[in-house]
């Protein structure tokens, strides 16, 4: 065997090792998540929300909804907020310089009246043009501000006026379940001194029948792009994040639904508009801040479905969304690089951070170069199609096992679902690597290029009309 073949084989096994570690790590995450799901499901079934609602330890919540050109979704989202069942909460909608009819839609539902409010703007979040109270709902306030400070700026504007100690951040296209707060706040209530943040699972609303903020029929979309994202959400929220949450090592409390303690946000200087996306950054910053301050803390995720959000329904929209997500991963991971393998940050520094660097940030490099490597190997006659297929099939099976375990967790948790849709997800979990991952790879390549070009916009894909 010549030296060229040996070198080729060594490189081959380096790539193989890299991908095997990722696949096994993912399987371990979802298996541990499965154990967590059983426990949380049990708690959920036996939690008495009536009792919790009447308890004198109820924690009030401020819900902040940033909205930039959200005329399509804001009505449904707002109405779903008004349907939320919780004893004490307020809603602050921040119109982030919308140029469409978002403000008119809000006015038509809320009957806005301008208020003479005075305030001190301690954040760099742009000029506040007006504060409006609702003539119909006492607990709703609308803030109209100039755009250009990303979603973080809008959230900071909301923070200025937030009354309560716990802040729920949601997207303007999130349709909340009426009992969403009851699903998460009991966990805060168990230890408000330590629990500074909590996220939860939310699915994709595409295909659902919605009226007046209420979901009339949960008919999941069979569009493969949507269904693959659904599978990805299930794998992430009900698998990986639950396990990370168990070890207080969660890298991101999603911006679609995240509860944070206000005093901590204020002490940290609010959300930062210097990054393309605020959710992952604030989670990293919270880990960093609390560890540096030496304060005990916990950031967690619960697997219960708290709401639904609209997901990109075609490839170009998916790529726009995912390249931004990938860009922000690189931004945040490079910014907080001192946490990498830093034992001061415990499991977050020793496990989550290396995973973020090796697989989330640099994964695109390995994936691309392994593809090039395989092609070269084939043309040089070193790697036969049969060998390639054997290893590729191994990867597909390992990947699909992750999806399948996550589906079991989902089935145990939800109990009410459509059998054909679950069967469809099972098929997709097998095909996922062939029909979905290539688009994510393209998005990651684009996101990496944009990062190195210094591009930092928080761009959104164009939202389709609600059916």
């Amino acid at each position, binding site marked *: *065997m010549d030296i060229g*073949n040996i070198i080729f*084989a060594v490189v*081959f096994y380096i790539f193989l090792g890299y991908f095997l570690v990722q696949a096994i790590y993912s399987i371990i995450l979802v298996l541990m998540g499965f154990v967590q799901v*059983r*426990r949380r499901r*049990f708690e959920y*079934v*036996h939690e*008495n929300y009536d*009792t919790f609602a*009447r*308890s*004198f*330890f109820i924690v009030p919540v401020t819900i902040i909804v940033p909205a930039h050109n959200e005329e399509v979704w804001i009505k449904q989202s707002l109405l779903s907020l008004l349907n939320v069942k919780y004893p004490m909460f307020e809603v602050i909608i921040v119109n982030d310089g919308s140029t469409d009819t978002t403000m008119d839609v809000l006015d038509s539902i809320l009957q806005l009246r*301008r*208020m*003479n*409010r*005075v*305030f*001190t*703007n*301690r954040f760099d979040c742009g000029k*506040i043009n*007006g*504060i409006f109270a609702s003539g119909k709902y006492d607990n709703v306030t609308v803030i109209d501000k100039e755009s250009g400070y990303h979603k973080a700026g809008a959230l900071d504007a909301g923070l200025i006026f937030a009354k309560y100690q716990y802040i729920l951040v949601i997207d303007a296209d999130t349709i909340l379940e009426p009992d969403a707060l009851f699903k998460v706040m009991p966990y805060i*209530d*168990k230890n408000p001194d330590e629990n500074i943040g909590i996220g939860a699972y939310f699915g994709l609303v595409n295909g659902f029948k919605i009226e007046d903020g209420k979901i009339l029929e949960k008919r999941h979309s069979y569009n493969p792009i949507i269904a693959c994202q659904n599978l990805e959400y299930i794998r992430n929220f009900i698998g990986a994040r639950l396990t990370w949450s168990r070890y207080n090592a969660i890298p991101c409390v999603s911006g679609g639904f995240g509860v944070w303690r206000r*005093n901590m946000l204020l002490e940290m200087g609010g959300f930062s508009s210097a990054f393309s996306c605020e959710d992952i950054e604030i989670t990293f910053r919270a880990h960093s801040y609390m560890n540096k301050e030496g304060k005990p803390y916990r950031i967690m995720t619960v697997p219960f479905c708290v709401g639904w959000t609209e997901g990109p329904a075609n490839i170009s929209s998916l790529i726009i969304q995912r390249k931004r997500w990938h860009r922000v991963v690189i931004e945040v991971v490079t910014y907080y690089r001192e946490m990498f393998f830093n034992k001061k940050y415990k499991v977050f520094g020793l496990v989550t951070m290396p995973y973020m660097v090796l697989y989330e940030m640099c994964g695109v490099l390995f994936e691309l170069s392994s593809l090039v490597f395989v092609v070269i190997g084939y043309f040089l006659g070193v*790697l036969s199609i*049969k*060998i390639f297929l*054997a*290893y590729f*099939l*191994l990867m597909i*099976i*390992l990947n*699909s*096992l992750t999806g*399948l*375990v996550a*589906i*079991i967790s989902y*089935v*145990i948790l939800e*109990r*009410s*679902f459509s*059998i054909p849709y*679950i069967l469809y997800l*099972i098929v997709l979990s*097998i095909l996922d690597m062939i029909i979905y991952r290539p688009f994510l790879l393209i998005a990651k390549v684009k996101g990496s290029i944009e990062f190195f070009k210094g591009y930092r916009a928080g761009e959104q894909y164009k939202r389709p009309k609600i059916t």
Partner: protein
Amino acid sequence: MGIYFEGLIWKIDLYLLGLEGFVIFVILGVIFSYKIKRSYINRQIDNLRKKVGTCSLDDEACFAAESLPVLKNIGIEIFVNMLQNKGNIQDKAILAKIRQNLLKTKEIAEVEKIAVRGRNKWKRIEAILALSYINPSYALKVVSQTIYDKDEDIVSFSLEALRNIRTNESAQIILEGIKKHIYSGYKAASIVSVFPCSVAEVFAKEIDSEDENLRFWCIRIIAHLKASQYSSQVANHINDISANVRSSVCEYLGLIKANDLAEMVLEKLSDNIWFVRLRALQSIEQIMAGDCIDNVAPLIRDKSWAVVETAKQIMVKYPMKSIRYAKEYLFDIDTNIHKIGVEIIDASRYTDKMLEGILSSDDKEREESVEMLRIMLKTGVEIELEPALRESSEHARNLLIKIIGTVDGKKAKQLQDIMEKRKR
């Protein structure tokens, strides 16, 4: 075998494919078992609903198993399901009938056995919870043991079972747990919060206990149950050696609105420990309402942020009484105190009153209002003047802009331009 172990990898692939097939089989099994179980439960509940419609609740014979055989099919699991899913059957009388029926079955003996000696932890917890619904007296016997279990899940759900029972006996068990430091008082208090007020007598026995943790939680629980009959006994602990106890006494006096004991609470506003001051603040507001502002205002410069936050919340709640302090705060170099001043002014809607005052014929009022406007503009407070100006008459508007001009020419010019643009 080559350098790439092709044959071995194909074999591994095959094994993994087999494993994958097994996992898919498990998923399908789980799905169908849930569907079948759910439809069985729904069918039984539907049948019950139809049958009981034909029975009078007083008619014991009708409800007997022979004439209403469907009761036989309502097992413990279905019954607990009915209690937890309120959309099913809510009629308490019917539920009581089913409960009586279940107590006669063999199934209950089985559940009791699992609750005491079950090997599977989760099955055991389910049995304990089911007993708390069906046979509370037996559940109390079991739970009085299980709250001392080593497993924290069993302890936690035993407390849930006690919450379902809600009697003096269950309160007594919770109290024993606090005494022995089995769980946090916070958790216990949260559970007792939904008990009837009468359970206060159980906790009142320990107000004078030597264990300070026990004193603290007993007073706190009694406070939230608003049992005012123990006020003199609790007030004796206002100078307790334990700060926790002092804070809970303040909390108690506030929650029962003990007007005659307000002096005691006022003294505690200068306690050395921050959370005693915090509770005293909250209590004094509950007792004196807006009249407490003069006592509360000095605490805005407290060392503890939590005390400051509470003092601020009280001042914002009574803005008109706090406004004179707010003016002072606007000049403070401490940005937090400045912000508090802003919030008080904001909450009081003082700007409307100030603009009216500027136009007033009363010289003193006008002077004061102009002075306030000057202070606000000078100290960088952002005021939304446009809506107020829009709603004013032209004469008033011009006068206002003129006065604003004496304080901040740029702002006046800006407002003038906006108004003219609107007019055009």
